[in-house]
């Protein structure tokens, strides 16, 4: 475990967030590939095996269906499993469980069975892993009623959202962003919980609302700094933190103040979460808008390998600045 005061890295926060819940509740257990002795391929479960033992931190075979299927069965019968799917791309190997089993058990049974289950997974690009290890796929999960979706951007939120996810009696997918693992931030106090479905206004502004999630939050913040310094534009940045439940109250209140909206998503533009949020703003807050909305998202191509090519495809500070200027100058 990392030191107990000061700052903590995002990757350490994952293990710390899980450990805090495992200490609190003996029914919280982990399972996944390489999560035990190896401490996770991203070192996000380091120290858990040592502290909690092999009975609560289980290394599994490469069996994505069995991992989430067993986690589901355990969740239905009194355990709070935290299952790791190593890279979010591999969620496709257990898509049946995400799309058909986990989100439907409570509903199909008429409320007879609860599913307190967390699936955590390393999402997104930035590490040069190529098209099958770099996708941002939170929008896959967004299409399925019955899953809750958290995607923290700071170490404190990793800990707070992990606590809420593990305590939730509903299934939650926690998308940890690979590009953020090395970032650092303040270590939150013991007992820190971030309620699912509460967005955070991480920078106040007057001229435009910029919505971001996970790794696009620092991108949006950097863009906001540059917009203020170079263009005199005051951008409000909102970290959505969760896609389901979706905090439309915070979004609409912000748009009411700024009258302009830009979303910054890492998932591909086609079918991305920004489309859903924008449609709600248009349906419910059309009269609040003084300019067309803009979505900055990844291009509709698989993630290319080369850094320069990946940068061509994903949202960058330059692209966010350009999008904001286009709506502010409208």
């Amino acid at each position, binding site marked *: 475990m990392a030191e107990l005061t000061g700052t903590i890295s995002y990757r350490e926060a994952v293990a710390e967030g899980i450990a805090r819940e495992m200490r609190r509740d003996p*029914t919280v257990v982990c399972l996944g590939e390489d999560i035990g002795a190896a401490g996770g391929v991203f070192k996000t479960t380091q120290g858990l095996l040592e502290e909690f033992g092999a009975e609560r931190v289980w290394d599994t075979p490469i069996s994505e269906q069995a991992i989430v299927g*067993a986690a589901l069965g355990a969740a239905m019968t009194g355990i709070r499993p935290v299952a790791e799917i190593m890279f979010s791309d591999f969620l496709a190997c257990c898509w049946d469980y995400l799309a058909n089993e986990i989100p439907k058990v409570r509903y199909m049974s008429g409320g007879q069975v609860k599913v307190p289950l967390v699936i955590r997974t390393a999402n997104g690009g930035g590490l040069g892993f190529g098209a099958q290890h770099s996708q941002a796929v939170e929008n896959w999960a967004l299409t399925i009623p019955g899953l809750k979706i958290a995607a923290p951007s700071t170490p404190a939120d990793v800990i707070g959202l992990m606590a809420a996810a593990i305590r939730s009696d*509903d299934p939650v997918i926690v998308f940890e962003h690979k590009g953020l693992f090395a970032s650092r931030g303040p270590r939150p106090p013991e007992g820190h919980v971030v309620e699912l479905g509460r967005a955070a206004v991480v920078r106040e502004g007057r001229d435009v609302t910029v919505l971001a999630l996970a790794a696009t939050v620092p991108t949006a913040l950097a863009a906001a700094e540059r917009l203020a310094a170079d263009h005199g534009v005051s951008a409000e940045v909102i970290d959505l933190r969760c896609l389901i439940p979706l905090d439309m109250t915070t979004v609409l209140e912000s748009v009411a103040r700024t009258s302009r909206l830009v979303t910054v998503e890492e998932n591909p533009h086609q079918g991305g979460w920004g489309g859903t949020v924008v449609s709600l703003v248009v349906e419910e807050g059309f009269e609040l808008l003084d300019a067309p909305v803009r979505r900055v998202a990844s291009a509709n191509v698989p993630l290319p390998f080369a850094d320069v090519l990946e940068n061509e495809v994903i949202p960058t500070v330059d692209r966010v600045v350009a999008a904001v200027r286009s709506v502010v100058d409208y």
Partner: protein
Amino acid sequence: MSQSAVREAMVNEGAELLAMYERMAVIRRTEKAAYDLFLAGLVKGTTHLAAGHEAIAVGASAALRPDDHVFATYRGHHHTIARGGSPEACLAELMQKATGICKAKGGSMHLTYAEGGMLGSYAIVGAHLPMAVGAAWSARLLRTDRIAVAFFGDGATNIGAFHEALNLAQVWRLPVVFVCENNLYMEYTPIRSVTAVENPAYDRAPAYGMAAELIDGNDVIVVRDAVARAAARARAGEGPTLIEAKTYRHYGHSRTDPAKYRPAEEVEAWLKRDPLTIARARLAGLGVPEAEIDEADRRAAELVEAAVRAAKQAPPPDLAEAFTDLWADGGAAWRN
């Protein structure tokens, strides 16, 4: 054993078998009712009737404790009733009534009776096998000696989840029993035409280092005893067992299937091996008078007739029910 002890054992066995016979008769009559109600336009969607498979559900249930967990497929009426789900609630579910066992939100393919440890019927072939592994894992973590059972068809043995589940269960030595109901057909395709081994479940167990049994799935006593052995192994920490029970379905795969693809001699031979007929013969062998068996049949008929009447009279679900039970708070709100 003394002669009187033998006689007492026979009486006890006769009483237990008669109870199992009656439960099988209830299932058979419920399936017939579902079939008739379907033809009358009162059952919507589809049904996968389990007539012919009763001995597996009832025999297994007799070997299990009330607090054990079972998981079944879309062909799960028999398991739900074997675990204590009422025919009335099951038929009401099929008829889309408010009193349905899943409040009319599950349907024939998703019958669930959590109170009886029946944790659901799953319509994606093979999906529930890892879930049973998870329930077995949970029992170990919670320091109970509960076991979990997954019932599945022969067709499920060729899907990835089957293999992942078997391997995980065995490597963790979990208290789970896998019961393959091999009725020789997937939907319309004979299993032997798509599987290179004779016994699609049993023959693969050695590849996972797993104990296995190949049994007659139409003899309720044989099933009960095999599942009892497997359950004892599981409770003793000796790990999972794979049971392949040979059986046959009396109807087609689902309500739209007249099952024309099955050779007449094959059907005839299997109908002679009807689990109810076999149980009757065994009861006679144990000295249970025929009148008592007929009486059990009569009770089963009465129960199911009353269930049909009640289900028919029940109201449709309140429309607001569409928006409950998604989340733990009871609702379905995805945004604020």
